[in-house]
């Protein structure tokens, strides 16, 4: 028996020793995908990762990569766990990673200080640290196309345009972790300015599926509107509970991590009328998505369930890949190199221009709002639009709603200053 164990241990040791970091030839674009298909939030992580990977795979299959250089897209499972995230980062960065999409606020926070040191930019698309939108303070971090705070301001504008905000009571139900608490300072600041009242309903991470107390409180407080910052199985549970207390669904608004197919399909008809924020297109009615289906899904070079292509989170992952690809292409053009470095990638991220024309060229006309890379503005200040669940699918119901940049921007700057304050050697940049 012990012999076997010892033999096993020796075999393991040999396996460790043969851990050879796969050398990637100079002429590839290495883009790691820190994804999570296991753990408590796998339901959201899986479609996002699928969209991201499928688009890059499509570029490889259709165009032979970007600028004639093949993309190597390696997935590393983080299980939404910060420790595994660091390990994934260390395991992949040596391969010449161009950009990290951490897909978790916790992991993003860990990577932000590492990015300038290792010279690999971080693109936390619509999550992570809102303050990182200040390009002068965070040269290596991007939150395109927008931040949580901008998004919240857009949602408030939506409420304002649907019967006014003044004198209203806004209920805010959120996952009680860093991510969910992030918009609270903005709400507290805006409430007196815009004359509304806020009621908070925190949901503890491990109580995601036991929310009856929160919704009893909602019934007690009777807010006029509900806004949700949820993730994973918190979302369908919240919507079900809202339906239980007969909360009017069209006054219940989820942020862009709380309004995906994965959240509403389990609820079905009961969620009819629920509103959600979004910044990427819905469905497969885009040439680029048709190409994904043709080059990737149909040949079966994917882990995606074909019926889920075009879902909200799938398309968001895809949009993330679109931004990455566009930045790569911009960087290639700017530097004249086909195989670029992380520093080049940073340039690309500050200079790409995904306007309507360009989106149309990419076969994504109307898929998202205009987005332009910028040195000062790493947030993109992008608008979000509202979508509504019709019982079976999401329907876009508004045009893009611009954020209240005048309010949000100073807050972002203050937060960025606070972040940098206790880091004496923090590298900032000056634009122009």
């Amino acid at each position, binding site marked *: 028996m012990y012999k076997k164990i010892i033999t096993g241990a020796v075999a393991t040791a040999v396996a460790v020793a043969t851990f050879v970091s796969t050398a990637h030839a100079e002429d590839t674009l290495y883009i790691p995908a820190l994804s999570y298909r296991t753990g408590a939030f796998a339901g959201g992580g899986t479609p996002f990762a699928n969209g991201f990977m499928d688009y890059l795979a499509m570029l490889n299959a259709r165009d032979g990569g970007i600028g004639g250089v093949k993309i190597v897209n390696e997935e590393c499972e983080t299980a939404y766990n910060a420790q595994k995230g660091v390990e994934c980062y260390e395991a992949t960065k040596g391969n010449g990673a161009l950009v990290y999409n951490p897909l978790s606020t916790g992991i993003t926070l860990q990577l932000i200080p590492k990015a300038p040191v290792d010279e690999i930019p971080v693109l936390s698309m619509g999550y992570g640290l809102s303050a990182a939108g200040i390009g002068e303070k965070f040269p290596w971090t991007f939150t395109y196309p927008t931040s949580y705070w901008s998004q919240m301001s857009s949602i408030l504008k939506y409420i304002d345009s649907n019967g006014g905000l003044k004198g209203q009571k806004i209920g805010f139900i959120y996952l*009680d972790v860093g991510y969910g608490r992030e918009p609270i300072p903005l709400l507290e600041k805006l409430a007196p300015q815009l004359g509304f009242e806020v009621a908070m309903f925190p949901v503890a991470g491990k109580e995601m*599926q036991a929310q009856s*107390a929160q919704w009893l409180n909602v019934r007690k407080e009777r807010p006029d509107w509900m806004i949700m910052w949820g993730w994973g199985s918190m979302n369908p*549970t919240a919507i079900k509970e809202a339906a239980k207390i007969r909360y009017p669904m069209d006054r219940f608004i989820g942020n862009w991590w709380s309004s995906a197919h994965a959240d509403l399909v389990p609820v079905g008809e009961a969620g009819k009328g629920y509103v959600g924020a979004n910044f990427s297109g819905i469905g497969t009615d885009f040439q680029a998505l048709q190409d994904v289906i043709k080059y990737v899904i149909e040949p079966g070079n994917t882990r995606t369930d074909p019926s889920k292509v075009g879902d909200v989170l799938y398309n968001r992952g895809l949009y993330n890949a679109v931004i990455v690809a566009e930045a790569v292409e911009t960087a290639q053009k700017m530097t004249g190199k086909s195989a670029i470095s992380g520093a080049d990638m940073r340039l690309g991220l500050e200079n790409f221009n995904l306007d309507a024309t360009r989106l149309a060229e990419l076969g994504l006309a109307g898929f998202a709002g205009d987005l332009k890379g910028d040195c000062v503005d790493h947030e993109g200040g992008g608008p979000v639009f509202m979508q509504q669940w019709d019982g079976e699918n999401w329907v876009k119901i508004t045009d893009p709603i611009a954020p209240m940049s005048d309010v949000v921007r100073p807050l972002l700057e203050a937060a960025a200053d606070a972040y940098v304050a206790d880091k004496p050697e923090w590298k900032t940049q000056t634009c122009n």
Partner: protein
Amino acid sequence: MGSFIYSVLGDPFVQMLQMPDFLMQVVWEGFVSGILYALIALGFVLIFKASGIFNFAQGIMVVFSGLTLVGLHELGVPAFLALFITLGVMYVLAFSVERLVLRNLVNQPDIILFMATIGLTNILIGLGQWIFGGETKSMITEQLWLPTGSSVWEPGGGLVIFQHIDIAAAVIAALLIICLALFFSKTKVGRALRAVADDHQASLSVGISLNHIWVITWFAAGIVALVAGIMWGARSDVSFSLQIIALKALPVLVLGGFTSVPGAIVGGLIIGIGEKLFEIYWGPLFGSGIEGWFAYVIALIFLLFRPQGLFGEKIIERV
């Protein structure tokens, strides 16, 4: 200071009186979650009584059984056949646990057995995710002929909403408990089970196979887990985060005593109703969201004063 005392001792009760319908709703919601806690706790008690093992894997068994049921249905298996197969899976689980784990750990200290069940938890999480994926799944409520929708009761202009699935949960839990009680008192195996619970040595000497008994109790705990999984899944969804909620059964056990079936039920109801009342009426003092630890802290305080629980027997130590 005065206003603080008022907000602790006065205001909550005023609120209760002002909105009696709401109070009723709170108590009802607490009652239903209490029933579910009690169901999970019942699984713990069954195994603890028969084998002295504190089965940490009971929580993941709830998730695993629910996932198996839904997963099979997704593969196209008709709902009731899927239910039947899931029962089979739980039997296989009970059998393999007995054969591969328990049998080899007889006479080990309790703490070792407990840690083995934590290992088992890991195995079930991995297997569940591997086979059925990590995504949240919705329970096949209607296919299992469970009721949906709700009824409204309006006492004196108030509003109390009763979800049909909650009522069903209460009824099914009650039936399950009655069935278990009958099983324990009326069948030969059940009586043997009680004998084992009372005295391992004695039951061995009257010729009862301990191994057989263990398989049956683990299977019974599996059935209880499946019922809890279906009910909780129908109320929210089936996902791995249920596993941590299932740990709430632990404070329930502390209150009720590890070996007492009525204790599990009463403890479940106390925790369920107590935590809802506290969260709604006193929670705002702490900034709300205290459900995550309230039950545990209550249990902790309770432990200091009555370690054997409400219904447990006092432990007499000997040398």
